[in-house]
């Protein structure tokens, strides 16, 4: 397929300069960093599997056949037909692979939601603080500083304690303790940009403040923003796993990777697969997110690499 695409592209160009389509230009960003490319692809895969869980998971994650409980991973079909339990079954006879897939849905969506909402709120606050300065900046940043000194896990647990466990409340708890980092980053970006000679030059030629903000400052701010979002998503997935493991996050019969480890803990000596696979997938997802986050940081810093 790639050959045809290449030919097609070459045929379209009679100029000596090879025009690359958007996809090829995108791939160019990974040159020299194939690890990041692999991580990126894996991440897309994990996300895709989570989204299309109902079509991919062989079993219903909540229904289990007690007869089949604690069966080790195997490639053989079970006695009553159906897809092999490639990753074994858990203490209630539920297929571990399916629970892993659906659990991914939960873990990823918690991570994504926390970062999206917390990140937006935090970034907005940071932008406001940086842009307006003065008292606004002072008050917002003092709140950020003080809140950053609060013990995150303890506060999140407190929120879950009073609101009750479950996916929604867990999401709320995590974003209430995680918004500060975005505010700090956005503010520092705006401050740097505001004092920059580039902004001064833009004013000198007559640019309006909105134009400066959207045309000049924002594009230069977006890549650090995206980096922070990606890296924080890794943190949030770990945090969700941590809290679900302790029993204060996602509740049964739903599954999340951390919850699976927590529930399966007591069976670890007889059925290691219930605990090992969820942990591996958490580690893999967090690793991919970290690799992609680092790649974004290095690749899109216009001062480090050549442009385009």
């Amino acid at each position, binding site marked *: 397929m790639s050959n045809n695409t290449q030919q097609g592209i070459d045929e379209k160009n009679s100029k000596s300069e090879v025009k690359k389509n958007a996809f090829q230009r995108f791939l160019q960003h990974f040159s020299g960093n194939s690890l990041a490319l692999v991580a990126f692809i894996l991440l897309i895969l994990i996300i895709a599997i989570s989204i299309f869980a109902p079509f991919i998971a062989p079993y219903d994650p909540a229904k289990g056949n007690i007869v089949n409980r604690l069966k080790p991973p195997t490639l053989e079909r079970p006695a009553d037909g159906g897809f092999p339990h490639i990753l074994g079954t858990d203490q209630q006879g539920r297929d571990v692979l399916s629970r892993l897939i659906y659990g991914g849905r939960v873990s990823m969506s918690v991570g994504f939601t926390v970062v999206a909402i917390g990140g937006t709120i935090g970034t907005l606050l940071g932008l406001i603080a940086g842009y307006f300065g003065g008292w606004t900046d002072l008050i917002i940043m003092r709140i950020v500083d003080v809140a950053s000194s609060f013990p995150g896990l303890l506060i999140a647990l407190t929120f879950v304690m009073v609101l009750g466990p479950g996916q929604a409340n867990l999401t709320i708890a995590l974003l209430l303790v995680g918004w500060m980092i975005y505010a700090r980053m956005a503010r520092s970006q705006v401050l740097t940009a505001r004092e920059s000679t580039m902004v001064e030059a833009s004013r*000198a*030629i*007559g640019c309006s403040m909105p134009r400066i903000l959207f045309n*000049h400052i924002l594009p230069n701010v977006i890549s650090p923003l995206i980096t922070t979002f990606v890296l924080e998503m890794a943190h949030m997935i770990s945090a969700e796993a941590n809290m679900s493991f302790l029993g204060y996050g996602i509740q049964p019969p739903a599954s999340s990777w951390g919850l699976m480890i927590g529930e399966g803990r007591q069976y670890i000596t007889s059925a290691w697969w219930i605990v090992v696979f969820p942990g591996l997938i958490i580690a893999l997802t967090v690793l991919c997110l970290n690799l992609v986050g680092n790649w974004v940081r290095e690749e899109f810093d*216009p001062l480090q690499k050549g*442009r385009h």
Partner: protein
Amino acid sequence: MTENNDNIIEVKNLVKYFPLRGGLLGQPTSWVHAVDDVSFNIKRGQTLGLVGESGCGKTTVGRLVLKLIEPTSGEVIFNSKNIYDEKFWKEKEFRRNAQIIFQDAFSSFDIRKNVENIVGEPLLVHGIAQGKELKEKVDDLLKLVGLKPEIAKEYPHTLSSGQKQCVGIARSLALNPTFVVADEPISALDVSVRAQILNLLKDLQKKLNLTYLFISHDIRVVYYLSDYIAVMYVGKLVETGPAEEVFAHRLHPYTEALLTAVPIEDPKMRASKEILQGEVPSPVDPPPGCRFYPRCKYAIAKCKDENPELIEKSPGHFVSCFVDFHGSKTII
């Protein structure tokens, strides 16, 4: 726009103090006297060279004169109208008349934009041209500063320092201004390129009938380009006058020191070395008296307590000094 005098710009008693914040809530605890009562005029089509060491406030003057920062007090009159009065000068309109060339061209660029975008942006912002017409005008500007039109597609980081500066100059000329502030335009360049840029600036002035405020720390460079020189020290003007006159007859010890600090090849032409000793006073809450006092060899008691005013010691030549100083030898 009627001009009733041939001063394109008149600066009157310009003052700019910056607060230094301290305390729990960041209240100003002391003030940096960046610009302390500076006045000068620049005639149409001429160049005023503003010279002084780093930190003396000359860059701040450049920003004040272009409405990029607000003065603590004082006036800037451009074409007979106060630039801070919205009735007379709408900001955007003012920008079409007065532009700036930065010392570090690269840091003044949006590095995500190519040369065409950078040079063409003023035209876009003021609605003067777009699309094909914009490209043509940009090409003209690039040719004007001696760059090939092919460079329009390049990004700033691929250019040499000289090319970057030319792009900066091209951008500043895009709106066809009459007044340009050149803030140390060659200080950041390789020595080999400096002469080129200086000559370019000179040519452009003739071609486009520009008025320059040329800011530099190198008095020799300033002399090359300027009709008038103003010497600044820790926020105040210490000597002003026609370039030839000031250069030939330095009437302030500091001007003398500036000149002799510049290496001159021919030993017969070197004046006696004036090596400054003593501390540079901090512009933060400066003491009363002449600011040059701590480093002045010729100071008298009066200099410590009183700040001398600018007095006309010979036609058009103003000096602020209590002592009757004369520079030792003629250099030129």
